[in-house]
């Protein structure tokens, strides 16, 4: 009988203590667990494309960070767009020689460096050719220029005509007729600068900036998870159809594809990625995705490596510059650099 009572008391005691234990654990969980960050988003038409900003602040409110990001994008776009009269680029094209700040010198030097490294497959002086095709602006009318017209402007296309005097903070165009357009690199550079600005204000902020498919990561998803980034299937007209998926905690991803800006004339597709050496659209690639630590690098190399094409024997060489690339040609054949596979793994 005693044994039975003891067993009964013991059971009730265990039950009470268990419930108390669970309550205590729940209470501690509520007190010490941090709620998941709340993401705020903003969409603006800027940088010649559609920009999505997705931010969760750590110590500063997400909405305040969004406003700062939007203003910074607009400020930098006005500074580097070749179509805005007050911009550094417009002024250089008009005056032929300008004095500028460290930031502008850095961007011009970066553009020239990518041109050199890619063997002039990326060129910031391509503007006269882009204007002939109508690819200088989204609203310009597109047409196929004659081979004579292209021959006439090609002598003005070379990064070698840009003279950068870092000591005296001067940039000069060495040949009359040469004009600059930093569109192939400034979009990425601006996203990098905006991310730097956000991180200065709030180092714990997370999120991303997606400028027309060129993506810069502010910080991992919810602070500790990778962002899942789909690579668009270049053979589908559906922009949501994916050919691959990447898992990125930080850094940048950019893609150049022949489906972005194009027109069809007499059954032939003419796209906006022009080979600076020929003046015609580069056709040995359909899509080139680049992963790097900076959007500027990913953006410029996605264009340069697209132009170099799928049969580029030096693809691995570019990994020295912090670039991992994945290329798809018109037949569906793919090549990639050795480190690209790493970003396909969800668990690092």
């Amino acid at each position: 009988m005693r044994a039975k009572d003891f067993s009964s008391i013991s059971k009730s005691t265990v039950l009470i203590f268990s419930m108390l234990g669970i309550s205590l654990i729940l209470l501690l969980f509520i007190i010490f667990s941090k709620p998941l960050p709340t993401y705020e988003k903003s969409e603006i038409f800027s940088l010649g494309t559609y920009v999505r900003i997705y931010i969760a602040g750590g110590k500063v409110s997400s909405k305040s960070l969004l406003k700062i990001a939007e203003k910074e994008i607009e400020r930098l776009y006005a500074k580097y767009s070749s179509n805005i009269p007050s911009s550094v680029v417009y002024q250089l094209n008009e005056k032929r020689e300008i004095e500028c700040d460290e930031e502008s010198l850095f961007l011009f030097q970066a553009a020239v460096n990518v041109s050199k490294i890619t063997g002039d497959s990326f060129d910031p002086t391509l503007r006269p050719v882009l204007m002939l095709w109508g690819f200088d602006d989204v609203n310009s009318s597109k047409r196929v220029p004659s081979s004579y017209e292209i021959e006439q402007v090609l002598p003005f296309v070379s990064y070698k005509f840009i003279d950068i005097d870092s000591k005296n903070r001067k940039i000069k165009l060495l040949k009359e007729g040469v004009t600059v357009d930093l569109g192939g690199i400034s979009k990425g550079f601006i996203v990098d600068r905006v991310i730097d600005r956000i991180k200065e204000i709030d180092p714990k902020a997370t999120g991303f900036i997606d400028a027309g498919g060129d993506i810069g990561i502010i910080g991992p998803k919810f602070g500790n998870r990778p962002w899942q980034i789909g690579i668009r299937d270049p053979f589908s007209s559906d922009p949501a159809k994916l050919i691959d998926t990447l898992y990125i905690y930080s850094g940048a991803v950019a893609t150049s594809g022949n489906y972005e800006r194009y027109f069809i004339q007499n059954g032939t597709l003419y796209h906006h990625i022009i080979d600076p050496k020929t003046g015609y659209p580069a056709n040995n690639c359909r899509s080139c995705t680049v992963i790097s630590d900076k959007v500027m690098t990913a953006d410029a190399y996605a264009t340069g490596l697209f132009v170099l094409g799928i049969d580029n024997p030096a693809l691995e060489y570019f990994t020295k510059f912090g670039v991992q690339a994945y290329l798809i040609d018109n037949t569906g054949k793919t090549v990639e650099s050795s480190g690209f596979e790493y970003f396909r793994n969800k668990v690092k």
Partner: protein
Amino acid sequence: MAKRTKKYDIFIVAAILLFAVIMIFLNLLIPQKGIIGVKVTIDGVLAVSISQDGLYPVEKDGKHLLTVEFYQGKARVKESTCDNQICVKTGWISNTNQTIVCLPYKIVVEPIGGKNTDGVDIITW
């Protein structure tokens, strides 16, 4: 007393399990109808919010720009007067992380509601 407690325990555990199973089945059986609507903005300003099936012309300053079609949880730009026609070629969208963008007119067709069924957060293109 001990026996009675045991009986009730089993009953409570069984009830919780049954409830969980019913909830799982309900979640599986409710069909995924895609998005519940779309909002159309012109340069960030709301032009029209759509939640009923139909065709919706989008205009600015009296000029017809494009027509959005919403039908059974999916949306598309049926026709557009823009030059590049990329918005029309985008086709139907039915996922919450998809948008249709018309760059020349600065128009965005953005889903309302629905679930992210393809799993990715961002698309590089």
